[in-house]
């Protein structure tokens, strides 16, 4: 009788594994077509709006031009949403490929990549000497990109932005802190910061899809680490994450 139960269980498990595999495949092909088929029409809207502004601006009133620009901005934003959601789902599914990641060069590269975002602004960078960690370079790159992009964005109202990246070594891993002197946030809402589509600011103040920090959290948790934040309204914010030396299996 016991053997019967065991065999029955094994069969159930096999069925479940198959079901899970099928669901995963379906999700995979779903996000594949979202990425192709949803991006294309958004790109067309932006493209034809650009052409309208470029070729027909003489026929457009000032109000008309503004409407076209709104159309374009919205389509571009929708495209960003699609990209961010896809990357969020990818960071949840793709397997980690750990390697030695030199955080110094990664931070330098990320800042270079973000240069357009702070062009014409005064930004003082304080980058400490950072360790090399064992992590998936692509994943960590995205997390760092999101954190630094946020620091740049939320200091845009400061005459001189100050952004620092520090590291602390612990016995079982490394902690990194990204701090800024920007608008900060109310600690009452700190539990919402890392949720998907959670925004603490109005769209006119700071643009964003509300996916960036959720993705940071997901990336760090995939590495078996954790994220947290400290801030005060108008006094800046510090985002911290811990990456363990030993990554979880799988």
């Amino acid at each position, binding site marked *: 009788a016991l053997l019967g139960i065991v065999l029955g269980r094994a069969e159930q498990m096999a069925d479940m594994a198959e079901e899970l595999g099928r669901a995963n495949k379906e999700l995979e092909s779903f996000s594949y077509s979202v990425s*192709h088929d949803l991006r294309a029409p958004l790109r067309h809207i*932006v493209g034809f709006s650009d052409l309208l502004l470029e070729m027909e601006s003489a026929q457009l009133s000032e109000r008309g031009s503004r409407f076209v620009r709104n159309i374009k901005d919205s389509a571009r934003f929708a495209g960003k949403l699609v990209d961010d959601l896809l990357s969020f789902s990818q960071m949840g599914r793709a397997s980690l490929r750990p390697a030695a990641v030199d955080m110094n060069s990664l931070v330098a590269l990320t800042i270079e990549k973000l240069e357009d975002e702070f062009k014409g602004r005064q930004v003082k960078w304080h980058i400490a000497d950072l360790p090399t960690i064992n992590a998936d370079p692509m994943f960590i790159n995205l997390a760092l990109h999101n954190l630094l992009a946020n620091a740049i964005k939320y200091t845009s109202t400061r005459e001189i932005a100050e952004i620092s990246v520090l590291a602390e070594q612990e016995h079982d891993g490394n902690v990194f802190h990204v701090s800024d002197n920007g608008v900060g946030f109310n600690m009452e809402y700190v539990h919402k910061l890392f949720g998907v589509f959670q925004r603490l600011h109005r769209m006119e103040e700071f643009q964003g899809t509300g996916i960036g920090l959720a993705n940071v959290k997901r990336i760090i948790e995939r590495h078996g680490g954790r994220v947290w934040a400290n801030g005060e309204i108008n006094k800046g914010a510090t985002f911290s994450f811990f990456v363990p030396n030993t990554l979880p299996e799988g």
Partner: protein
Amino acid sequence: MLKPILLVEDNPNDLELTLIALEKSRLANEVVVVRDGAEALDYLHRRGNYSERPIGAPAVVLLDLKLPKVDGLEVLRDARDTPSLKSMPVVMLTSSREEQDLVRSYELGVNAYVVKPVEFQEFVRAISDLGIFWAVLNEPPPGSVRYLPPKV
């Protein structure tokens, strides 16, 4: 004789945007448009409607990935399996950067993989760079004719 650029694109909006971009880049090459993978293969193999066209591979093929009937990867595979088309430059021009598409395209021997930029100005620049690179700057495989731009 200037070799044409073969544009394989099924979506009418993309087709119009790409043609405007090509026009803006002022390339002298003729642009041949086909609307699906099967028609692209007819052109490349001089079959069907294209049996009368002059012999020779295009300067470059701008190939969309998702196409009706025969998709971009199948067109690429066919070209790479055909001796006369083996070394013809093929550029994937697509909406998205899905890793599986990139991997498969490069495995099949694509020459470049370009994700269409969202901003039209950038799109024009990308198309114009591609055209200039493949139709003008690039040294084509031996046996094909290279286009020399007229000296001003």
